[in-house]
């Protein structure tokens, strides 16, 4: 194989100046490795029971806990004093691309993964001013930059076995010793030559690192791979399309619904062999239930994107998957939309709690969907308990709980060459990969939502790699109701909104954090970082950061024993990339049609790369 690029034109950025002589001294380590994360969750609402420890001082995994709750038991910062929150530290990551994801905090150190080139920055929290302990630079293959569909984001790291473990855009997973920033292992998981990249955050369950691939737009085939946490060696891989052996379907596969049962559905629900290009990638979040030893994730859109070419259900695209955490064996699957015609990936987070539901205790999985519905399933068997709209949604009127199927509105299905107007939500969904939070004190899920619709219009000539082709023009715009984004406080048991905090200008594209202080934190695409009352939605505090927020807040106890809140400020990602100077706001169909909905963002923000830490 010959090298395509003999030399890379490199641009050194501000990071260099942030690097002073780096201290090598061993820092005091709190002997917390392997220690339990957490404590009792505080008074819970309505018979709700947490299924695993939640964050209570450190932030060791992407969502803070196995249940994807993004809830912390810390309560020093609370509704009565959050007004006094102030900036404690800021520092630059040096990379002005979309800062999705969140830092980790453990042993008095904050670990930040940057967008491509995916540097890992370790910051000593015992010193003022964002003192850098070390920076690990993996130098991933820059060819991956041209392949990633929607900005060169990274959704964060996980900690296990003394290592910080995260994915690189060039389809590798790397483990870095948390103490000294040396590389412990690096494993090639996917192949950028066929369009695979990695942007998702891994989850470590026992001795295995779970990671999924990105790149459905380039016809790749989605999978989850499990790597050995000690060595990085791949232990197994479970595909989301193809024959049962590839999907790891065996005698223990027991989907709740008839529509999801049958042999080799990952083959037979596609025209011949198209499952090989079948997308259904895994670039969102994993959650894990220690009691049932199942892990859960959602799959992306089917490939190829044009639905006319792939009649059939296209399994297992747009599905919620439940697998055995040791073997990867599929135990149940629930396909939320069969034969996707809208790009409704269902890679969103699955929040796990136990609660009284319909008069008896049930193990719940709550999935705020791209489709505009919040799905509540029994996570033991995959039964759909409810599906209720949380944003303007018209592609379906609801779900039939007997069959698990949506009641679709046929006029909103897209077909090549047919103009279809006013489809809600748009392809970006009523929410995207940006994660929700759940507070056991209120029993509410806090969903960062978008209100966008789209028109799917006639054909136009396009061009890639020397080949002219014909595409539909997709135009997205703000949906009905006079707002563009909303933080929705959702009661998953009643299936209804309790309150909403709307954003006139932009979708909410920041993750959410809820705390035992009954404060909910989130950010806006024009750069406000906000705290609202978890029970009422009343805005309690806000601070304007340097750039739009598409990252996820975390909270932790500093070495001084005080509570802090951290957030990335750096606009980007699919919708946020419209803020980049290189994307013209004149072409409403650019960035997959998102520009139409986001054209004003350049007036309000610009690329950034700052980590903010707030305290009292």
């Amino acid at each position, binding site marked *: 194989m010959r090298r395509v690029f*003999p030399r890379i034109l490199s641009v*050194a950025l501000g990071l260099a100046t942030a690097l002073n002589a780096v201290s090598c001294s061993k820092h005091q380590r709190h002997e917390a490795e392997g220690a339990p994360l957490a404590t009792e969750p505080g008074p819970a609402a309505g018979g709700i029971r947490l299924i695993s420890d939640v964050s209570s001082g450190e932030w060791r995994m992407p969502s803070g806990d196995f249940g994807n709750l993004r809830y912390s038991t810390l309560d020093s910062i609370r509704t009565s004093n959050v007004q006094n929150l102030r900036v404690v530290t800021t520092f630059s990551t040096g990379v002005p691309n979309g800062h999705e994801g969140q830092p980790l905090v453990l042993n008095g150190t904050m670990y930040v993964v940057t967008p491509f080139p995916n540097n890992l920055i370790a910051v000593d929290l015992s010193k003022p001013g964002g003192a850098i302990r070390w920076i690990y630079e993996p130098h991933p293959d820059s060819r991956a930059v041209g392949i990633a569909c929607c900005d060169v984001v990274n959704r964060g790291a996980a900690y296990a076995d003394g290592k910080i473990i995260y994915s690189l855009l060039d389809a590798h997973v790397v483990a870095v010793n948390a103490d000294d920033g*040396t590389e412990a292992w690096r494993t090639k998981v996917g192949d950028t030559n066929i369009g695979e990249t990695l942007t998702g955050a891994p989850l470590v369950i026992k001795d295995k690192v779970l990671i999924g691939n990105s790149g459905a737009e380039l016809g790749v085939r989605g999978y989850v791979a499990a790597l050995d946490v000690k060595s990085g060696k791949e232990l197994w891989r479970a595909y989301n399309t193809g024959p049962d052996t590839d999907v790891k379907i065996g005698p223990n596969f027991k989907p709740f619904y008839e529509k999801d049962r049958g042999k080799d559905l990952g083959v037979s629900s596609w025209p011949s062999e198209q499952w090989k290009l079948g997308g259904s990638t895994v670039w969102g979040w994993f959650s894990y239930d220690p009691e049932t030893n199942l892990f859960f994730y959602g799959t992306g859109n089917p490939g190829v994107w044009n639905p006319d070419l792939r009649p059939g259900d296209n399994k297992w695209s747009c599905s919620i998957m439940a697998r055995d955490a040791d073997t990867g064996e599929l135990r149940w699957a629930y396909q939320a939309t069969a034969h996707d015609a809208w790009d409704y990936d269902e890679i969103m987070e699955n929040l796990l709690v136990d609660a009284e539901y319909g008069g008896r205790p049930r193990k719940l999985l709550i999935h705020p969907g791209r489709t505009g519905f919040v799905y509540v399933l029994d996570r033991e068997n995959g039964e759909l308990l409810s599906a209720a709209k949380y944003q303007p949604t018209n592609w379906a009127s609801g779900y039939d709980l007997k069959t698990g199927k949506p009641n679709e509105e046929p006029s909103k299905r897209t077909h090549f060459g047919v103009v279809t107007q006013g489809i809600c939500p748009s392809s970006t969904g009523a929410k995207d990969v940006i994660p929700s939070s759940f507070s056991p004190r209120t029993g509410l899920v806090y969903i960062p939502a978008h209100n966008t619709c789209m028109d799917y219009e006639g054909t136009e000539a396009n061009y*890639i790699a020397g080949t002219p082709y014909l595409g539909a023009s997709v135009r997205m715009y703000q949906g009905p109701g006079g707002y563009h984004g909303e933080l929705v406080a959702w009661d998953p048991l009643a299936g209804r909104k309790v309150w909403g905090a709307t954003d006139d200008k932009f979708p909410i594209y920041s993750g959410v954090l809820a705390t035992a202080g009954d404060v909910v934190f989130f950010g806006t695409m024009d750069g406000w970082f906000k705290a609202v009352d978890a029970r009422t939605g009343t805005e309690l505090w806000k601070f304007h950061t340097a750039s739009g927020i598409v990252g996820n807040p975390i909270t932790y106890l500093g070495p001084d024993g005080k509570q802090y809140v951290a957030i990335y400020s750096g606009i980007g990602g699919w919708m946020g990339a419209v803020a980049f100077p290189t994307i*013209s706001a004149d072409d409403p169909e650019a960035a997959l049609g998102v520009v139409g909905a986001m054209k004003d963002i350049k007036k309000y923000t610009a690329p950034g790369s700052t980590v903010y830490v707030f305290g009292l």
Partner: protein
Amino acid sequence: MCSVFSRGGAAAAIAFLAIVIVPARQRAAASPDAPPLRVCADPNNMPFSNQRAEGFENRIADLVGRELARRVDYLWQPQRRGFIRTTLSAGHCDLIMGVPASFELVLATRPYYRSTYVFVSRRRDQPVASFDDPRLKRWRIGIQLTGDDYDNPPAAQALARRRLFNQVRGFMVYGDYSREAPERDVIDAVVDGRVDVAAVWGPIAGYFAAHEPKPLVVTPTPATDTLTRLPFTFAIAMGVRRDNPSLREQLNGIIVRRHGEIARILQEYHVPLVGSSS
């Protein structure tokens, strides 16, 4: 053991664009004072271009450079989503050698050729000339797919409309980029029997069919499909930035003046040419 990175080291460097500036062969004709003509091109996409400047777009760029008395420099980047945005529109180059004449992301010159989608079959079979050929109901049909944005080559649509999805074997336009000439696989598949026929964009089909060890037959698809009414021929132009109409004027002049030489280069690469290029 700890890793230390010094201030200002290459360690902090960030590669935004996989771009490198490579002066092409020096030419006597190039004026030493003239700024180089910067062309953005894919380093591994024969027959259009490659890093050894062996593609027909490279050859035509050479011709343009000679006419303008400017040295040709290449900025290499794979043609993927965002190619125009991150290369030409970002100001990293002046010219892209191939875009559809109606392409709105750039200022397009007048077209310099028109080609067509074609069927590629084996010599022993009667050539295919229509999407309604009854053999297509039982043959395996190779087509290239893009996967993006509901977009696909028109052959994909024509076959879908005829409900021939089960005959379709998809090959990604991008191919396996670790291979030399990643787009070649769909033509190889006709030779080695993975498919019975391929419906592929003419320049790709013509070039690789001519280089296969076994002879293949290349026949144009109908110019317009009767069922989908989609066009199968496309006029191809050069693209410049919208703020550079003066370069377009110069290029338009070269396309007219050197029409014969451009056509000879295209024929040398077995590009199927149809009708007038306008």
